[in-house]
């Protein structure tokens, strides 16, 4: 029985690996030739831990009409549901007047344009860099390169397996963002997992150490349009994945906090939308 359990766990781990590789179809391995597609941008970074890293792309103006249509349709459905819930509530309330009810129903709230809770337009714009394939690997030092739609990205968080299941971690209460222009490779510098880098835990929120000239680049990037990421403060982000929350540590010249308010350290003001 113990052997079968171990086999099942091994199968689960293998499935997880297959799944993570599969989602990484835009992620370069150590043999892929790097050819720049002018319609895409590319994110490059170094790391010591091979934990997945999740970015989120800000919505662009041309994505808004489709999002507005989806929101309007969802609102209409919610309002129709409200009518049914209201009928049910009235029925249950009437029955509770004639006999005791252990759990009295709560009155439903009608969804309106103002109170309707619908994910914002960027909620589907995640990019996940998985633990493999790596772009380069030299002992514990690895690097990653992934092709992404051009846009402005925020460092969102990480995901991984715990013994109790899949866990997510996000820098929801303040993070950094950067532009990823078309036809360019953006060098983020080093992604760190402060605890995992020294082998203490498995899922935690990633942090960025900005690129410096002391960081070398793989020879395979020679001759390609590589630019250092211009990091900026990014405001709070919803906990879309329902995971654990954190915030990116302050970065001089980029990001700091006043209590829980995110401050753009260049301007002294909250980040511009």
């Amino acid at each position, binding site marked *: *029985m113990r052997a*079968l*359990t171990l086999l*099942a*766990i091994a*199968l*689960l781990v293998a*499935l*997880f690996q*297959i*799944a*993570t*590789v*599969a*989602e990484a*179809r835009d992620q*370069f391995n150590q043999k*892929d030739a790097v050819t720049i597609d002018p319609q895409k941008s590319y994110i490059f970074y170094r790391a010591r831990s091979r934990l997945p890293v999740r970015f989120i792309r800000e919505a662009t103006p041309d994505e808004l009409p489709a999002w507005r249509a989806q929101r309007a349709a969802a609102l209409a459905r919610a309002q129709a549901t409200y009518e049914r819930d209201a009928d049910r509530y009235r029925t249950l309330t009437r029955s509770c007047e004639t006999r005791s009810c252990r759990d009295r129903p*709560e009155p439903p709230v009608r969804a309106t344009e*103002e*109170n309707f*809770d*619908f*994910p*914002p337009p960027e*909620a*589907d714009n*995640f990019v*996940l860099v998985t633990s493999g394939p790596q772009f380069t690997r030299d002992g514990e030092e690895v690097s990653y390169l992934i092709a992404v739609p051009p846009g402005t990205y925020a460092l969102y968080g990480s995901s991984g*397996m*715990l013994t*109790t*299941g*899949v*866990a*997510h*971690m996000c820098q*929801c*209460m303040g993070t950094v963002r950067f532009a990823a222009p078309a036809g360019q490779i953006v060098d983020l510098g080093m992604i760190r997992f*402060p*605890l995992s880098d020294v082998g*203490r*835990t498995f*899922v*935690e*929120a990633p942090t960025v150490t900005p690129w410096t000239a002391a960081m070398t680049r793989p020879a395979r990037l020679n001759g390609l349009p590589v630019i250092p990421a211009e990091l900026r403060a990014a405001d*709070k982000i*919803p*906990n*879309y*994945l*329902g*995971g*654990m*929350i*954190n*915030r990116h540590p302050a970065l001089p010249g980029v990001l700091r*906090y006043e*209590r*829980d308010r995110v401050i753009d350290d260049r301007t002294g003001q909250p980040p511009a939308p």
Partner: protein
Amino acid sequence: MRKTWAPLAAAILLMLPNAAGAQGTVASAEAPIDPATIPMPALAFTPTPEIEGNYDKYFVFNRAGTDFATAHADLLECDGYARGLSHRGPVGTNAHLGIVGGMLADSGSDMLYGSAERRRQQRHNMRTCMRFKEYRVFGLPKQIWETFNFEEGNRRVPEGERQRMLRIQARVASGPAPAVGEVLMPAGGEAAP
């Protein structure tokens, strides 16, 4: 640069976007609340090693010089980050029991381990968020704590009940600091899950 069938498995395992709503965005459109209408719970107790051993589970927040409206808004925001967590217990580890047996056993595992992990993550998120807002954390005995606090493992707390308790928590957070039970931030802060 491969494209394979596995996004389905990835979606199951990683619980990709759409699994949860826009948490952290729950807003309150209520009229201003008069804190005098909110009962202040009795918080006095004598710490024992057993009570102190559970401070990581049973705690309240307090911040000097904070008014009720601010504390209430802070708690609502943090509750937005801590509600409806997506964590699910391990899937597939009971495959040796067959398809139906495995699913039932997985469900049981989630009831046990997933539920405990969701409660742990909820506590982590509340503490992390409120620490960032510079609140102090004070431990309580479970018997006092459970009269105005809630946790979500396998059940959703009814919204009316949740809001009632959050208002009492705001009363505590904006009132006099508890006399005993302060939980100091561990080295490294709340970053470690």
